[in-house]
């Protein structure tokens, strides 16, 4: 159960995408800082390539070896995340050394400067942590908000209800196949 937002707090609704480079710490240990930073830069470049054509989408912040992205609509979030996953997969086949895991969730967030906070952000981070290398997990609220406008070329496979730490009710997830 999600508590209703405080009426006095400004909220914005959209999609939060978290990404994470799987095995970054071990990779950094093996190859050194310079090569590791190049990988981080490449991840940011991939992200910008995805969001540049989507109004209002942005990289909210870098989180160590991961990113937090914002998309103002569910359909932009889903399509953007799917494109990001494809771009990461293509990059991997072209020599990018690490796989990415991604999690996408939709709901209300509270702007805090350039940052966004709130349970939608927390859940998106948890969903991302459940993803495997090269996997994009999408929560049911994203798909509900997209409605019939979902890109039919996206092949989503049900994962089932998943218990997420700190959230009372299980969240239904689908994975991009």
């Amino acid at each position, binding site marked *: 159960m999600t508590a209703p937002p405080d009426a006095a707090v400004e909220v914005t609704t959209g999609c939060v995408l978290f990404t994470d480079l*799987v095995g970054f710490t071990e990779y950094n240990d*093996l190859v050194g800082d310079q090569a590791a930073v190049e990988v981080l830069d490449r991840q940011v470049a991939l992200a910008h390539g995805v969001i540049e054509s989507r109004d209002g989408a942005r990289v909210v912040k870098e989180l160590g070896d991961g990113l937090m992205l914002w998309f103002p609509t569910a359909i932009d979030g889903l399509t953007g995340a799917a494109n990001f996953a494809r771009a990461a997969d293509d990059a991997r086949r072209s*020599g990018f*050394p690490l796989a990415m895991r991604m999690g996408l969730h939709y709901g209300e967030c509270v702007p805090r400067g350039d940052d966004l906070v709130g349970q939608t952000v927390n859940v998106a981070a948890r969903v991302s*942590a459940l993803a495997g290398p090269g996997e994009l997990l999408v929560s049911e609220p994203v798909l509900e908000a997209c409605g019939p406008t979902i890109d039919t070329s996206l092949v989503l496979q049900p994962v089932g209800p998943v218990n997420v730490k700190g959230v009372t009710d299980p969240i239904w997830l689908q994975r991009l196949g």
Partner: protein
Amino acid sequence: MAANTKSGRIEVESGTTVDARSQSGRVTVLRATGVCRVRAESTRVEIGASAGADASTNSGRITLENVDGPVRAHCISSRIEIEMAGAHDVDADTVSGRISVTLPAGTAVHRLTGKDDDSPAPAGCDCTVRATSISGRIQVES
């Protein structure tokens, strides 16, 4: 079937298509008639028999036995051991863990050694095995 846990163990005696996710609880699937997908953080993953496997963990060992379908396996620092029951494609990678792939005797294997190696399989090959590791030893036998 789908199962997920933070720290509890997941054991599937028999399933069709399996999706199991665990942070630290060990995951064991004895038999899956379909594809078995396991995502784990820091625990061991064992799949006894399946029609295909897609397994990943950060720090626990991955053991796949008697797999009769395509395999994807990803691990960061532990060992991946794959024993195939048939000639199917394998994509396995680690950062620092060892990889061992055993295919049925006589299987003609097209072996790829890098993620960016997309060389086509020569005529007569039964399957493609891509096994990559930055620092771990790789062994492919048939």
